[in-house]
């Protein structure tokens, strides 16, 4: 590992800059940081919502909160995590790192980028304003029709849900367009598509997923608004409408959306694991190809959310076949990470710990996903805590751990200071233990009959015990999250200075100062002749273009 050089005084993140300069910025780095800060704020809020739910469920017949408030919390928790934490979180890192990694000066459309950010912030604020207005959405994060129809939801809750997700989604689509054009047209000379860092490649594929998956959601929400505001009949069975149409359109978005959430996390791992294994990523070509396969298949499997809605055997079986198939390219990546670490020299920094945590938990979450793709098993466990356990394994163990890893990895580049490794280890262990305590039991709870989205339950044998364990685990997760937030706050002013390249890493963002100057690169870039151009410059005798044929 390279030693941390003492550089000229580390520019403070807000050095000589005003609040206005941040608000008015079109710099992708600042926009990325603001995305991440926004996601962090919404993470804390959504986490608090979850804690309240767990407090309510800790005992049977609990009276911590009312039934209607419980439904509001579960809706806001799910909706926020997907639209205001996960998606902005991955976009934040994409914004920050992709232009740097490809040697560009900024994104293709900087002002569009800023618009996307403010649409996210405004949409999130609108969504949470619903608390103040007493109109918090309460129909679940996928808001099935006709529970969302006027007759079943006569007030404005559903409308807050629609607008609170629609507005940020416009920004998300715009960012995806921005990323596609940036990655296609603004790579530095020598960086062919096949030499893209895997995080950039994943963000490219994710962007295609975004632009082709959000439209069905937007269309469905438009139809719902027509029903609710103009007396339309899209989902009105009395007039011939079909509630199932909502489900088709929603999951046509919803399934690709979960890959939108996980592919960037895979991308982060693909950067971090090699650096802390002191080896290049194993199997770049298969990783890239597997990503395309995942993206393609993700559009075809939406029906596995609808196995219990009454379709015929051939139809359900077809969706099942495609769904088990998508497990394969996802599983391959796990093997690639293990192979990358094999024969390496593993440094267990906090970023690396979260990557390892990801790999360990994602195996479990992926396997439970395979069981859910098998139709008759799904008939028993869908809409139960088994599913809740599954998707938290892949979304927390996957996406959130990936975002944590990315934070510990890129924070030094963003701020010029390292996050504390000591606090980082507290964060990791508290969070991991809490996570396992909370979500492993949920698989059992589902198997013994507990459905999702119930504010309380009878004192059935096993239900009380398992729920109590889950609720205790949530407290540990909260403590871990607090350690994380404290780590960030403290390190901003007291963190050890990082220098340009604290990790002895491989990609171009480390070839500039920490933080980078406004136009990213002052010095000429290293010549790009392989997938690890910065490594090649630092270690010319072991440059990839010498040791790897092709590339």
């Amino acid at each position, binding site marked *: 590992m390279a030693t941390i050089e003492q550089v000229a005084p580390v520019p403070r993140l807000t050095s000589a800059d005003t609040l206005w300069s941040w608000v008015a910025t079109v710099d992708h780095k600042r926009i990325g940081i603001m995305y991440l800060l926004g996601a962090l704020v919404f993470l804390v809020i959504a986490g608090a919502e979850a804690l309240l739910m767990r407090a309510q469920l800790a005992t049977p017949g609990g009276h911590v909160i009312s039934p209607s408030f419980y439904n509001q919390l579960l809706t806001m928790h799910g909706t926020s995590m997907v639209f205001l934490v996960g998606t902005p979180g991955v976009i934040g890192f994409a914004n920050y790192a992709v232009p740097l990694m490809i040697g560009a000066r900024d994104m293709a459309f900087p002002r569009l980028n800023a618009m996307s950010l403010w649409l996210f912030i405004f949409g999130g604020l609108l969504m949470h304003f619903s608390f103040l207005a007493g109109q918090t959405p309460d129909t679940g994060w996928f808001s099935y029709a006709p529970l969302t129809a006027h007759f079943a939801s006569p007030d404005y809750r559903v409308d807050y849900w629609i607008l609170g997700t629609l507005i940020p989604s416009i920004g998300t689509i715009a960012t995806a367009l921005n990323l596609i054009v940036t990655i296609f047209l603004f790579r530095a000379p020598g960086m062919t598509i096949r030499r893209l860092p895997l995080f950039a490649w994943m963000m490219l594929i994710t962007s295609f997923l975004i632009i082709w998956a959000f439209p069905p959601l937007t269309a469905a929400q438009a139809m719902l608004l027509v029903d609710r505001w103009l007396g339309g009949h899209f989902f009105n069975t009395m007039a011939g409408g079909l509630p199932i149409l909502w489900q088709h359109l929603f999951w046509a978005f919803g399934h690709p959306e979960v890959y939108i959430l996980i592919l960037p996390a895979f991308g982060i791992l693909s950067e971090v694991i090699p650096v802390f294994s002191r080896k290049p990523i194993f199997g*770049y070509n298969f990783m890239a190809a597997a990503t395309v396969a995942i993206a393609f298949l993700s559009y075809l499997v939406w029906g596995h959310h609808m196995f219990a809605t009454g379709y015929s055997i051939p139809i359900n079986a077809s969706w*099942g076949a495609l769904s088990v198939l998508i497990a394969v390219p996802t599983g391959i990546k796990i093997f690639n990470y293990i192979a990358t670490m094999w024969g390496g020299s593993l440094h267990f920094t906090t970023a690396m710990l979260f990557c390892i945590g990801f790999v360990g938990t994602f195996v*479990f979450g992926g396997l439970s996903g395979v069981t859910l793709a098998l139709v008759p098993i799904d008939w028993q466990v869908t809409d139960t805590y088994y599913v809740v356990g599954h998707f938290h394994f892949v979304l927390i163990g996957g996406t959130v751990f990936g975002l944590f890893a990315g934070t510990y990895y890129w924070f030094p580049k963003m701020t010029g200071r390292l996050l504390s490794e000591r606090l980082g280890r507290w964060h990791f262990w508290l969070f991991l233990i809490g996570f396992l305590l909370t979500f492993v039991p949920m698989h059992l709870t589902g198997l013994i009959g507990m459905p999702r989205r119930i504010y309380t339950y009878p004192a059935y044998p096993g239900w009380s015990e398992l729920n109590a364990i889950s609720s205790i685990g949530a407290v540990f997760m909260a403590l871990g999250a607090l350690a994380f937030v404290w780590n960030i706050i403290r390190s901003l002013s007291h963190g050890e200075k990082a220098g340009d390249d604290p990790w002895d890493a491989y990609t171009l963002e480390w070839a500039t100062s920490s933080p980078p100057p406004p136009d990213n690169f002052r010095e000429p870039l290293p010549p790009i002749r392989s997938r690890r151009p910065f490594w090649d410059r630092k270690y010319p005798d072991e440059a*990839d273009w010498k040791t790897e044929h092709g590339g």
Partner: protein
Amino acid sequence: MPGVAKQACTSSPRSSRESMSQRTRIGQSYHHARRLGAILAVLLGLVPTLALAQHPGSVFDGATPQARSISDYFVLVLILAAVVFVIVEGLLVYVLLRFRARPGDGRPRPVFEKQHLEITWTVIPILLVALLFVLMLPVMGAAEDAPPDAYTVTAIGHQFWWEFRYPEQNAIAANEMHIPVGEKIRLRLQSADVIHSFWIPRLNGKLDLIPGQTNEWVLEADTPGEYMGQCAELCGVQHAWMLLRVFAQPRPEFDAWVAQQAQPAAAPTDPTAQQGAEIFRQQACGNCHTISGSHDPGGVAPNLTHVGSRTTLAAGALTNTAENMRRWIHNPQDIKPGANMPTFKLSDAELNAVVTYLEGLK
């Protein structure tokens, strides 16, 4: 911990405190082990589930050919998954221990790819999932068919209760369904308002009740007993208290039950009950709740013609006792806030009378 063991041998006050806390710890561990055992027992279907069944059991404790077919398949899949899990996690742990950085480590040899290996670990998973898929198909078939002449019950989902119609006998029940044991029953699923889902883990997987369409499911209990479940699709504020009970009975007993359900309401003979019937009319409860001949179409609230013979009230929120019925009528919002039943301002005497009347409707 070596320190503790050494001190336990001496007779200092400290050691006796420690051995006492050791005993308490052991006592606690035994208690936890019993609880864990209880969970596992429920999971493995070892908890007796006849007659006094008060919980849904587990998906592995099937009482029908369909549920057992699914759980057998599920166990097979879980075993396979466990093997994969152990192998992959084992590899991960091995890698973490074997290749952790040590001082003096040279630079690791870069390995960019190994195509044969990568193809192998692509093809094998494809074959495995294909196998799982093929094995799945017969299980799907077993859970779906009911012969055209099967006895049919229609379940209609409401916010937040279940309506059961027995078209052959013209009987209507609510929240509790009886079926003949040992026969394939066709269950037709409809909804009066939003999407609900019918789920009894020991009888079959779940199937949704979607307004505007009729879904068909099959129940084939082979052991008499009480089977529990609940609504499994968020349907509004009281989704949690939309419990479901199915009683499987031998044919003769079932026939007797459904014949009884088809009878019009017994006219009250007791004067208090008669007074209760009068209050029922005055308060216009019949606007939502149908009593008398079950020839009336189902209303917006459970049919009460035979409410006295049900085991629970408010879709499982309360056991059916006079006291609970009084509590419910007095203030339903207290027990099930958000349920569609309004609160009635009845005096104690009036409540008494109504409860006597309703409990008499067996």
